[in-house]
């Protein structure tokens, strides 16, 4: 199992990359910065499972919180509104 590098409250940036393959990190959130809300656990990497490999060692998966207004330039709701996305550690870097 890969060691968890982040803890709740840490600021993280989602890698802005567009590799081929089966990727769970939504396109709309790549390149954005958010805050670790929680560590969800560690799971086999779906990018590897999709290619018929084991996906091991298990990768830490986080729930990351983003401010809606920072994600969507035309967002009309409250500035307090947030969006939470579950993202694997290998897509995150310290911000």
């Amino acid at each position: 199992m890969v060691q968890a590098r982040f803890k709740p409250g840490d600021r993280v940036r989602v890698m802005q990359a567009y590799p081929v393959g089966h990727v769970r990190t939504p396109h709309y959130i790549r390149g954005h910065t958010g805050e670790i809300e929680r560590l969800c656990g560690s799971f086999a990497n779906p990018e590897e499972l999709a290619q018929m490999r084991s996906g091991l060692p298990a990768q830490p998966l986080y729930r990351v919180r983003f401010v809606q207004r920072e994600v969507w330039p035309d967002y009309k709701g409250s500035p307090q509104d947030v969006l939470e996305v579950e993202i694997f550690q290998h897509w995150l870097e310290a911000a």
Partner: protein
Amino acid sequence: MIERSHHDMGGQPGGKVERSEHDYADWERRVDAMSWLMRKHGVTVDERRRHIEQLPPEAYDRMSYYERWIVSLAQAALQRGLVTSAELARKMVEVQERGSG
């Protein structure tokens, strides 16, 4: 380089949301059962999603949810050597003739 694959639709205009409930057709239940059986033999949901994500955009939009799953199960069975394209073709013709007969 493809920046956004067709299936990765989050944040795109999506049109009206259909809120009515509907019952499943028998063939849809069978597709679901087949997915579970293949999972027991190592075909993960991630592998099946990869096949769905590789559908051409027009096919992805035209096909229903379970029709996409059928394509993914067939692709997985083919890649893993459970069936050949020739066997699949013969069976498809046979079923089609049975239906029209």
